[in-house]
């Protein structure tokens, strides 16, 4: 072993130095993502873009048809799917932000109320598969007068509701299913946010004689703002990619009168049930553009990039 490195050893050493330099290390660390992005995302995405300009009729007839698929997207069923998707996302956000925040504030209280049990109880629905949840919800919200929910409706003097036959009740069931599954998770996120707020802030506010409402508005709410942003972000993505809930509830991708068909449901229906692969790809591209647009608006709105830079 000599102290003087050989030529090859030198190159190796330089390579090592390069590999270990603080300039390069971050790239090495994000490499898994970049590889996975290129292989499992970018490449198939490009193929999808290509397909969206084709008419794939059958297995060996592929024809370039320009923007025809995109023009065909302008139809009522697709618009209905966009409407359902927007409404669903809107309602889930409207409920899944304030409600878990409220419950988290209660659970965060210093009084002994068995918070551990409640946290677990709210979280458990998240552990089940949509398939399992769908079985229960389909039965609970069944048309018949003896079904669970209609029994409760009757107890309050209401008529049995045909839950999955009309658009408003269907949306209510879909949102309920979503809230049931995600409430506990969002509570935990909010609890995390709440614990980052310094208790002294509350103490000094109490000494100033601030009411509970004032404390909530001026201390709690600003304190959990990052959590609210995060929860809204994941809810938007969750809402726009929703399909499994509808599928599990109706047992098929097709819903009567399109009342529960989402954009992803439409893509699935077109690509697989009706075997229009090119058209399905175009619908996918439309969804992609729509989500990108919303994402840009949202990021601008919340300034998510301005993290303690």
């Amino acid at each position, binding site marked *: 072993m000599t102290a003087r490195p050989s030529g090859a050893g030198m190159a190796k050493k330089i390579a090592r130095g390069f590999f270990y330099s603080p300039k390069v290390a971050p790239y090495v660390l994000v490499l898994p993502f970049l590889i996975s992005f290129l292989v499992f995302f970018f490449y198939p995405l490009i193929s999808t873009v290509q397909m969206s300009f084709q008419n794939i009729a059958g297995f060996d007839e592929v024809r370039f048809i320009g923007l025809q698929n995109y023009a065909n997207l302008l139809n009522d069923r697709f618009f209905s799917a966009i409407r359902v998707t927007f409404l669903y996302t809107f309602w889930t956000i409207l409920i899944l932000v304030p409600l878990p925040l409220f419950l988290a504030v209660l659970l965060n209280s210093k009084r002994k109320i068995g918070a551990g049990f409640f946290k677990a109880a709210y979280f458990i629905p998240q552990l089940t598969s949509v398939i399992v949840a769908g079985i229960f919800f389909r039965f*609970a919200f069944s048309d018949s007068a003896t079904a669970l929910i209609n029994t409760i409706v009757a107890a309050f003097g209401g008529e049995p509701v045909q839950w999955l036959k009309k658009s408003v009740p269907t949306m209510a069931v879909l949102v309920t299913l979503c809230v049931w599954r995600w409430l*506990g998770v969002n509570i935990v996120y909010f609890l995390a946010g709440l614990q980052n707020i310094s208790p002294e802030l509350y103490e000094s506010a109490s000494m100033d004689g601030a009411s509970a409402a004032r404390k909530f508005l001026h201390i709690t709410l600003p304190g959990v703002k990052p959590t609210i942003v995060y929860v809204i972000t994941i809810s938007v993505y969750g809402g726009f990619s929703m399909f499994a809930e509808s599928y599990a509830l109706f047992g098929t991708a097709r819903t009567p009168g399109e009342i529960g068909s989402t954009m992803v449901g439409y893509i699935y229906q077109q690509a697989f049930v009706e075997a229009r692969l090119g058209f399905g790809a175009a619908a996918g591209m439309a969804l992609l553009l729509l989500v990108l647009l919303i994402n840009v608006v949202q990021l601008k709105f919340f300034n998510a990039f301005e993290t303690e830079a």
Partner: protein
Amino acid sequence: MNKTMRRWDIFRVSMILLLSAFALVSLIPFYFLLVSSFKPGVEMVRSGISLNPHFEKFTLDMYGLLFSPKESNYFFWYRNSLAYTGAQTICGLALTSAVGYSLGVYRFRGRNAIFVLVLLVMMIPIEIMMIPLYKEMIALHFFDNILGVVLPFAVFPSAVFFFRQYSSGLPLELMDAGRIDGLTEYGLFYRIMLPLMKPAFGAMAILISMNSWNSLVWPMVVLRNSKKLTIPLGLSTLITPYGNNYDLLMPGAVLAVVPIVILFALNQRSFMEGLTVGGVKG
């Protein structure tokens, strides 16, 4: 003093009542699943889910069916689900923590661009590119095996997002101290920063494993052999347009939930702490 005490108690009781009402809603489906799983499928068809449990019709026969390995692949599905979930979680944690850490701690060119790509992956439903992805799996020999299930989604974007948020709150002074001690960049990550991120690991382990355990769409495409399916896929074979097999569906659904609930109950406190401590920071 006494008066205020009583006022507090009323407040506390009403809080508990309110919280209990929500807890009831959260848990009641499990009660009904459990009750239904002890009744023959034809009962499920006949009376659905109603308030009357019909205890007189209880039987263990369907569990017997599920547990006789010759008659059902349930055991295979279970074992597969455990294996896929384990692999996905370990692989996912190792990769996403590094990516998230790099994005959260370092300032480098293209950092924001990469983060936008993470968000992009996070929001695109894979349904739109299933066919090219399927062809790729076959070309890579990932088809119908664990690699095909795990690898395409190993770099789980939400976890990257979370680790990025989490690590951006880490004390950067420690890195400088570590550099002075002669640690390389990777040494810094592994020796100093990683231990600090432990709570985030706990949280993401849950997130990734829950996602993997319940994932439906992708495994459906990439798995083919009946003995390689997962529990959600297996259960979905019992649902057909011309009648569902409730005899096996209900006990199968119950058993799919029970172990993960037990696991959760045993580790509940640590689970929660992980998620809570790893909370979202601005």
